[in-house]
């Protein structure tokens, strides 16, 4: 986007742009640590504390 100022995006560009970001965000690393942080897998019932 920075290299092409003023260029309009349309629906045909979205998938190409978001694709790389998607796989970056959904890296196996991220997925595993997110589930761990939430205490879902491995299960950890001490993660939920009363307010």
């Amino acid at each position, binding site marked *: 986007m920075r290299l092409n100022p003023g260029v309009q995006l349309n629906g045909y560009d979205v998938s190409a742009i978001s694709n790389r970001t998607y*796989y970056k965000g959904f890296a196996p690393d991220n997925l*595993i640590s997110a589930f761990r942080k939430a205490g879902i897998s491995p299960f950890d019932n001490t993660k939920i504390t009363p307010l």
Partner: protein
Amino acid sequence: MDRPHLIWNNDGTGLMMEHSLTKVLSAKGEKANCVTSARRQTVTLIGCGSAAGVRVPPFYIFPGKRWKDDLLDGSTLCSAGTMPESGWSKSTVFMDYLEKHVLLYVSTPHPLLVLFDGHKSHVNLTLADWGRKYNIIFFVFPLHMLPYPWT
């Protein structure tokens, strides 16, 4: 609980085609270059990943009437998309997505636990019944309680 490959989380996000108008610096008398498209279009991207670190290719929901394969140009070959006809409810799209996309990549004789957040209103009784047929258990998170990276 000891089967992380059976636990999946699911969430969608809206991708706006145009940025919001901001201030533009330009020489006096020049026309300021700040382009936004006239029509507001939002493409929804649904992502799904398992606790074992496996993810399903992206799935796009485009606004519009006529589907064209060009829409997915530049994306991974296995990504998919749909254009819901008007009158389709969110849960119909969601079921369509699970059936035609997610289940292509996840096949197991064991029941699947699918987590997702509830505020997108794709939750209803049909979904629960439908899930039973496909051996899927749904768990809906309370509003905005998804952990990173699904916040």
